[in-house]
């Protein structure tokens, strides 16, 4: 069994103090990843001396969506995200991703910050936040730095977060004007891994045309990335010019370009193509365009 001393922080200042003074400290939030890893004696956590419970730190909680900018505290749970009327109204794809995670019991404890820092290849919070161009505020005793979420993960389960830093919040610009979104997911975390795929589509539209669009993969690629070719294909097109099936094909080609041909490709390629097609159709429908 991994032996550790549990410490509880009650303010952000206390968190930063402890992270500066003590070595071999592992932050504990909802525990839905970490408690599992500790139980399974994951060698990654063999050497920790302290667990630092941050669940009582009020400064790390809450959702604030302004007209221009928004932020989500790292300790916000998936249950809070999916039941927030503000999220439902303004950023429904974030609520949809949150509601797809785990079970009621998991969502009640699991936090968005834990999901990002744990950085599993199939973690569901990445694609909606990357679509928003979100940045993470990483803080240590000396101050804070901002890292683009796309640049946060080095490889699965490894991020650029330093030992003395805590993820404080996620910040992003709010989409402007008329915008539509779609979150798509197939397969469950525990099902055979080839059946896991998810994606977010977020588009700003004007005069029946796409002004800006982000289509971001979830578990289709080793790290979640924007599908640049699909985004290029869709940007500045009028609704009439868009062929959803073609967008799907472009995305599927792009995925195979990133991952290479693998044993799972014959399944994933058509599945992703259909998901993108469906997301684009949803977008057109939501925008009130019926061909």
């Amino acid at each position, binding site marked *: 069994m991994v*032996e550790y001393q549990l410490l509880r922080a009650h303010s952000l200042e206390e968190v930063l103090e402890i992270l500066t003074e003590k070595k071999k400290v592992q932050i504990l939030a909802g525990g839905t990843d970490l*408690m599992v890893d500790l139980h399974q004696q994951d060698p990654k956590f063999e050497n920790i001396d302290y667990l630092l419970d941050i669940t009582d730190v009020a400064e790390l909680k809450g959702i604030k969506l302004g007209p221009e900018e928004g932020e989500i505290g790292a300790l916000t749970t998936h249950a809070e995200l999916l039941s927030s009327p503000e999220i439902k109204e303004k950023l429904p794809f974030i609520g949809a991703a949150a509601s797809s995670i785990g079970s009621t*019991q998991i969502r009640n404890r699991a936090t968005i910050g834990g999901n990002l820092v744990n950085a599993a290849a199939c973690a569901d919070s990445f694609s909606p936040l990357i679509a928003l161009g979100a940045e993470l505020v990483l803080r240590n005793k000396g101050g804070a730095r901002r890292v683009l979420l796309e640049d946060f993960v080095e490889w699965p389960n490894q991020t650029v977060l330093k030992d003395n830093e805590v993820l404080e919040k996620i910040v992003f610009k709010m989409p402007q004007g008329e915008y539509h979104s779609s979150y798509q997911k197939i397969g469950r975390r525990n099902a055979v891994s080839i059946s896991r795929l998810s994606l977010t589509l977020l588009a700003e539209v004007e005069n029946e045309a796409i002004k800006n669009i982000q289509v971001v993969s979830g578990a289709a690629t080793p790290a979640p990335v924007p599908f640049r070719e699909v985004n290029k294909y869709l940007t500045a097109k009028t609704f009439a010019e868009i062929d959803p099936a073609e967008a799907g094909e472009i995305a599927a080609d792009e995925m195979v370009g990133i991952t290479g041909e693998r044993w799972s490709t014959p399944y994933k390629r058509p599945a992703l193509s259909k998901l993108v097609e469906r997301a684009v159709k949803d977008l057109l429908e939501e925008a009130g365009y019926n061909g």
Partner: protein
Amino acid sequence: MAKLDVEITVNGARHKLEVGSQERLLDTLREQLKMTGTKEGCSVGECGACTVIVDDQAVNSCLVLTAQVDGSEIITVEGLESKSGLHPLQKAFIEKQAIQCGFCTPGMLMSALALLNTNPTPTKEEIKTALEGNLCRCTGYQQIIDAVEMAAEEWGV
């Protein structure tokens, strides 16, 4: 290693306890408080047998350290029965034959109670969502869903 002082309320009774750093809420309930109604199945958040209610929310007690819930109100399956008899949920589970081996039942009851406490008139979909983190190897779930629907009807009035 230093013990931690915590105070928790379980089924209405206050307990001042000393807990170890590694002690999960599940361990405290079963080993310190001798409330063995809460079950340990998978120990990793998958099966829901360990579900209890912490401050009105269903949680997996195998994934929570007791010191993390210092000051909280906890409800376990032992909290259901009262002087006036079995809780409507318990009666409905019996009536609808929603129990076979019974290992999943305490967790199922807690997930159902957490749901009905916040949403006394759930739809079938809402019941399914509330129970999706509770596995049952015996019943096939339909009887359990029927029981929760029945309890909602009887209890709601």
